[in-house]
């Protein structure tokens, strides 16, 4: 077993991994990236539609183009990228952090490094996770798998398609399958609202007259060999209304029913996992409870757009570089909790005396919502956001001035709340 020493090891060469490695390299640290696929780029490579990079580059790129910009930059540096390499074990430690990897090309290696950054991405929730009853025929794919099979491998996974879940991948695959010549019979969404971005509803469904069945569920899958049909029923008061069920004859069912951070490598190392994000708990430096182990990107929490993944990962890279170079962070960190109407807030602490970018998800939908940061009864900061929906992440920058006096205060936990307000407020 070969031992490799670096300052930083990044696990995953997707959007998060590339950005975080570059941020570390800018601080002149020796960084390596391990990637289990045969080439770097991550899921971006199969996202051949456009819409990436609006925030980051001010232009609309396809997924491969967005990845390309980072890949070129990585190639121009001394970052070592090891593809076809799977991280199988992570261990914390006082002297160094250890990651064991398996690879056909490099054999088994142990990376001994100052900091590990988990940029591992997420997986798709599947049929078992949402418990669709019925038979278990071929022709049931997660939307991302179907996207991979179509856009990278060049296969046609189906000809008459029903899509469950109105997440962005589901909407994009509705359009993609239509362009392939397949008939998309509908998108079935349990919630009363679409969970993907509005632009995708317009561009992927409405432009192709694909029906969107809101407040509906698939109640049964039929077919012995291949999918033959699905039964769809309205969802009322937490139950399927079977009297108004209808049948859609199809050979394919695509599931776009949510993403879950791949937290297993972290969990097995003893990293605390949040039941709300399903990713690691992290502090204001995006560091987990194991010193020197950091997390960012969709492996930390699921983002709406890749631009924010890149931004978060760069922050993470700077914090990891600080850790490795011994710039001891003496800043006081105060615990931060999700309060009323907040599904989750990240990170889990606020650093006193400097600016803090919070990512939070609302549990409610409203035209205008006021976010408030409290310490007990005291309101520390407040800001109103427009068009708040559970599907869209709220990003709120708490300025250094707002947190300035916290370093002198007791570390009483803070909480953050969302409240719907009248539109003109």
């Amino acid at each position, binding site marked *: 077993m070969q031992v490799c020493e670096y300052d930083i090891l990044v696990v995953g060469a997707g959007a998060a991994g590339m950005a975080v490695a570059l941020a570390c390299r800018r601080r002149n640290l020796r960084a390596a990236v391990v990637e289990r696929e045969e080439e770097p780029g991550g899921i971006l490579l199969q996202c051949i539609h456009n819409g990436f990079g609006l925030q980051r580059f001010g232009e609309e790129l396809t997924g491969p183009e967005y990845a390309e910009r980072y890949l070129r930059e990585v190639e121009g540096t001394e970052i070592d990228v090891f593809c076809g390499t799977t991280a199988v074990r992570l261990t914390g430690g006082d002297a160094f952090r250890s990651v064991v990897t398996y690879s*056909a090309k490099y054999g088994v290696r142990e990376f001994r490094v100052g900091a590990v950054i988990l940029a591992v991405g997420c997986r798709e929730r*599947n049929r078992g996770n949402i*418990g669709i*009853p019925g038979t278990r025929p*071929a022709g049931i794919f997660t939307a991302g798998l179907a996207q991979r099979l179509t856009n990278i491998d060049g296969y046609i996974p*189906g000809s008459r398609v029903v899509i469950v879940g109105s997440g962005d991948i589901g909407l994009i695959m509705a359009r993609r399958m239509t362009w392939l010549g397949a008939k998309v019979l509908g998108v079935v969404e349990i919630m009363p609202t679409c969970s993907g971005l509005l632009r995708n509803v317009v561009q992927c469904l409405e432009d192709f007259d694909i029906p969107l069945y809101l407040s509906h569920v698939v109640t049964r899958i039929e077919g012995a060999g*291949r999918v033959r049909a699905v039964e769809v029923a309205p969802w009322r008061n937490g139950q399927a209304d079977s009297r108004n069920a209808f049948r859609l004859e199809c050979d394919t069912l695509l599931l776009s029913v949510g993403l879950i951070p791949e937290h297993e490598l972290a969990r097995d190392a003893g990293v605390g996992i949040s039941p709300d994000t399903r990713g690691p708990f992290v502090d204001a430096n995006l560091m987990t409870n194991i010193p020197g182990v950091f997390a960012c990107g969709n492996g930390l929490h699921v983002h709406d757009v890749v631009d924010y993944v890149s931004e978060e990962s760069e922050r993470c890279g700077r914090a990891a570089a600080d850790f490795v170079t011994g710039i001891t962070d003496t800043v006081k960190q105060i615990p931060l909790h999700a309060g009323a109407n907040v599904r989750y807030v990240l990170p889990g602490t606020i650093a006193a005396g400097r600016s803090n970018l919070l990512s939070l998800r609302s549990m409610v939908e409203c035209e205008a919502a006021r976010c408030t940061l409290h310490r007990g009864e005291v309101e520390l900061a407040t800001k109103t956001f427009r068009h708040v929906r559970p599907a869209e992440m709220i990003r709120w920058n708490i300025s250094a001035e707002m947190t300035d006096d916290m370093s002198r205060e007791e570390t009483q936990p803070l909480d953050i709340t969302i409240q719907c307000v009248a539109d003109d407020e």
Partner: protein
Amino acid sequence: MTLMQPARNKTTDAYDVVIVGAGVCGAAIARCLSGYDIRVAVVEKCADVSFGVSKANSGIVHAGFHHPADMLKTKLEIRGNMMFEKLQHELKFPFERIGILVLAFSPEEMEVCRRLCAQGRANGVPRLELLSAEAVRGMEPVLSPDVEGALYAPTGGIVEPYRYVFALMEAAQGNGATLLLHWELDRAERNGDVWELRARDSRRVRARWVVNAAGLFADEVSRILAAEEFRIVPRKGEEYLLQRGAAGYPNHVLFPVPSRHTKGMLVIPTVEGTMMVGPTAREIEDRHDVSTTAENLRRVFDGAKRMVPAISTRDIITAFAGLRPTLEDQDFYIDLSRRAPNVVQVAGIQSPGLTASPAIALYVKDLLKAGGLTLTEKADTRTDLPETTAVRRLSPEQVDEHIRRNPAYGNIVCRCENVSEAEVVEAIRKGHTTLDGIKFYTRAGMGRCQGGFCTYKILQILQRETNQPIETFTKRGKGSELILGRLDT
């Protein structure tokens, strides 16, 4: 298992025994008979071994206290149970004797445990014990505080059912038995002292003896052979698989006290660290109905949570249903046919069929002998299978050694279960060429993502290894094609 071997014989050259059905019974019988100097074939209508009743088995090696001593299945259950260490040693399939607890929630239920204990002791089950509430909770901290006591059967165990069946068949084939897949019996004729069996696709097999181990379809096979009339009633069981690391993972197989037809809704830890809950038990008409329902999901979890409150539907990876082939008297029917010559019936093999399977094989061998088949032990029988390599069970140092010999051990295809390319290739080369066959053989696709990340990799490896077009690959045989076409054609 090797890729479809054409039968060695010309039409004149008959097998001594043909076994209809490559489930746990057919495979166990084939392995047993392959130790003798006779020619054995197994015909199976599915695309792979164990694809019928056996693959949905709960994987419990039962102790032998559930049924009275006068039932055939009790005798075979107890005898079979005791054979598993030796079998595991020879065939290297995953098996652990972790013990069974039957939990009582009231004095009445404790009385049932007492009765089962007495019945088990009368049957000859060793080391049965009645436990107090305190003792049982000490052994199994995840249990509900409402448990008032239990029956403990330390000889109960868990096994990976399909791996066991695969191993039996591999061993049989290693000793010369022939396996014919996609071979569905259509007609049978007796010519002189030879049975001529014809498949739906017109392939023919000739044999002196026929063993009917056709599971759910044993009654149809019996009819085709003009043997006894009986009716197999499928009793459906829905089960749920929970992910590794799920809350509530117990150290023993947990049973409630049984009702007349079923051993009840169980919590079953698996050898691989996942957990199964179920099964339901309902008699149905349709022998192909392996669908699951929302109603039964609730029933299964209500039953499981009563025993282990921490169990959560949130940890479900997948659901499946299996059909138990039952006869009216609920016992096994294993005998020489009294109507058709040279036919052995192996029917009604429901629970505890897997436990009993090695004993069933011996029982069938004795019936064949009694019926006049000459059985001489082969001199060169191989009882052992080589150990298969699974990266997930090796230390990094061991994996490093394997990679040096074969780099494909370093290419992790299934990230959830840490299955390497080399393991997938081995499965394919042994004849497991469907996605489900590869899954059951290697565990690739059996973890938390359920094939989301490994399916395309396995399809690539299948194409490379078999050189077949992508449209021909299936989930579990013809009709379950995965890909409908290519963009460039």
